[in-house]
């Protein structure tokens, strides 16, 4: 049986409709569709979105399978409503060759829970010195379009310029982790009032903003497109806004945690809040929300960064940076953007599916919910309220900052090309 009828779903929060899936495709969207021969899912007014697309996920395989694997990571993605994730290149070995990106891509296909688009490293070993074989990664079965040394900044201006120029040959994209390395030596949290009090090394906003400034200028100069990962400061927003006003080809993402959490939380010295870029101030959070709402920031990306318990159950200075995010992203966006009136659900679909798919040049993802389109769908119970309980996470890691926090919304169903990967909130 391959027919599924989703009955009474608000498509992008519109009037309730029925959506018929046959095989891998949406065949009909309309009122009172026939259920003959179809498995019926009563949506009961839940919100139907296109399957979410993440431009920034760490799946940790190969190399750190104790944190996450392609299988566990894609299962977590499905639970979070994602049908496609970009797997970052900072694995062991680094995804800087056709061989590694093909391995990750194949593992993604075998997992069956979510499309996996490997991100290729920009430089060999993420060392920032020598370009990796960008063309070979593009030509491989993985068909890599997005390249990033994420976790590290491509700080050499010449290397960055060459990378931006080189990928124009195949419409590739350089995604930059903007962090001036000298300004962030020994940095452990946002530099400001709280870092001064806590005596923790400061990560100043200008370390992010100076790199973004340089990179948008470089991209404009060589006529390429650049994507800025995880914007975290109000100043970064201003620079991206300025670059866009010039008509330059720059896109940007923000993580859910930077839309909600501030550096005040670091007062607990609880390493669950240790993340890179660091949590910033309330004013930064408000600027980021505003920018996501007005489109200056194109999309939400999770920066899902799983770490095993022991890497966080220690003192702040020794703890690993990062937090998991796939399974809570939509809830945080509902909480910070929808319930504040900054975005409606159609705009959420834009920021979490359409636009990231377009930035990543994906063809079968981030498509409208209409007849003839691939059936990549996410059904959301937006009325749900509940406490986050990491014990139930599909991710192999539990390093969430939201443990015990009440967040709205729950993904009840996820469909990957017509196959249910999540049913009633549980992995299928």
């Amino acid at each position, binding site marked *: 049986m391959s027919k599924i009828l989703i009955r009474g779903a608000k498509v992008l929060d519109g009037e309730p409709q029925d959506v018929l899936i046959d095989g891998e495709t949406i065949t009909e969207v309309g009122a009172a569709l026939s259920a003959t021969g179809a498995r019926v899912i009563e949506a009961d007014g839940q919100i139907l979105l296109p399957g979410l697309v993440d431009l920034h996920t760490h799946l940790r395989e190969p190399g750190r399978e104790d944190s996450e694997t392609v299988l566990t990571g894609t299962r977590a993605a499905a639970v979070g409503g994602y049908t496609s994730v970009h797997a970052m290149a900072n694995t062991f070995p680094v995804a800087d060759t056709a061989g590694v990106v093909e391995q990750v891509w194949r593992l993604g296909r075998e997992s069956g829970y979510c499309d996996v688009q490997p991100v290729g490293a920009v430089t060999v070993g993420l060392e920032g010195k020598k370009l990796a074989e960008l063309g070979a990664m593009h030509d491989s079965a993985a068909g890599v379009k997005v390249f990033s040394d994420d976790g590290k900044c491509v700080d050499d201006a010449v290397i960055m310029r060459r990378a931006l120029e080189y990928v124009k040959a195949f419409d590739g994209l350089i995604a930059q982790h903007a962090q001036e390395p000298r300004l962030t030596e020994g940095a*452990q949290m946002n*530099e*400001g*009032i*709280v*870092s*001064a*009090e*806590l*005596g*923790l*090394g*400061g990560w*100043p906003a200008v370390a992010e903003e100076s790199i973004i400034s340089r990179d948008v200028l470089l991209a404009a100069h060589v006529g390429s497109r650049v994507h800025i990962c995880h914007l975290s400061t109000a100043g970064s927003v201003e620079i991206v806004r300025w670059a866009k006003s010039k008509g330059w080809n720059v896109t940007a993402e923000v993580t859910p945690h930077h839309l909600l959490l501030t550096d005040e939380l670091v007062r*607990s*010295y*609880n390493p669950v809040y240790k993340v890179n870029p660091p949590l910033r101030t309330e004013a930064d959070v408000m600027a980021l929300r505003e920018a996501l709402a007005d489109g200056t920031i194109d999309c939400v990306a999770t920066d899902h960064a799983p770490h095993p318990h*022991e*890497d966080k*159950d*220690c*003192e*702040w*200075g*020794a*703890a690993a940076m990062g937090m998991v995010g796939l399974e809570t992203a939509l809830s945080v966006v509902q909480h910070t953007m929808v319930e504040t009136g900054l975005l409606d659900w159609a705009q959420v679909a834009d920021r979490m599916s359409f636009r990231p798919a377009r930035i990543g040049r994906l063809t079968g993802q981030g498509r409208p919910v209409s007849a003839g389109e691939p059936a990549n769908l996410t059904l959301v119970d937006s009325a749900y309220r509940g406490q986050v309980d990491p014990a139930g996470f599909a991710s192999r890691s539990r390093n969430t900052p939201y443990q015990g926090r009440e967040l709205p919304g729950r993904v009840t169903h996820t469909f990957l090309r017509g196959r249910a990967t999540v049913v009633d909130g549980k992995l299928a």
Partner: protein
Amino acid sequence: MKRHLISAADLTRDDAVLILDTAEEMARLADRPIKKLPTLRGRTIVNLFFEDSTRTRISFEAAAKRLSADVISFSAKGSSVSKGESLKDTALTLEAMGADAVVIRHHDSGAPHRLATSGWIGGSVVNAGDGTHEHPTQALLDAFTMRRHLGQGTGSDLAGRRVTIVGDILHSRVARSNVHLLSALGADVTLVAPPTLVPIGVGHWPCEVSYDLDSVLAKSDAVMMLRVQRERMNAAFFPTEREYARRYGLDGERMARMPEHAIVMHPGPMNRGMEITADVADSPRCTAVEQVTNGVSIRMAVFYLLLGGAEPAVSEPAAPALTRTEESS
């Protein structure tokens, strides 16, 4: 008093005065033929030092021993503390050994806070210096020294006294703790340093900031010189040692411009010729050696109060060992 001493910022004025008063009682013990109290007999205090500091470790050790506690010193310095498990694992070991108090010195800011709040350990935690965060017992002994010279005696605070702290504020846990504690005690604090060694965000601290030492000397009741680490020079915090000494060092000429009653303080060890000249260091106005002595009294007071001391500490010399209170179990 709370169960732990992690930060001077946690101390109210009354907490601080209680500790200083208790330390006065402890100091009187030094005049007795037998410098030992039975107060903490049967209790175990562990010195857990992840960072080398012989001076501080010995001071805590002496304080614990004068109160008849069993002292275990654990030096984790030099071990490959790459992942941080060692703090947790060490804590679990100490817990299994029944430590009543753990004195921790750590290179990471927040490590004592983490030790006290993570549930790894049940006893009291005393911060003996964490990263560039705090060193509360140092601030307490500094305040104790100031009160002896500038204060009104037992029960008093430092209201209206003007304290100038000079040097590497950015990396100084001593400065952080002193700003909190001295302001709680009513003193007016001014920090003096080149702008590169003043933390961003200092505007929110209860103190003034000046880049000019000469302009504040004449109105200081105490001038505290901080140790400047020579490696700061390589990171371009200031151009040369010579220039630093010229602009921010305390020499005899500058000392002469301080009020007659004003004291010169230094947490030690001193870089003679850098932040302080030899003649100032050896002058009777410099309290550096006295601070070391006072450190033992302060740490005795802290142990006594944290580990359940409710009555005056010294009035009954033959008092039996205190029983473990519910709070510290």
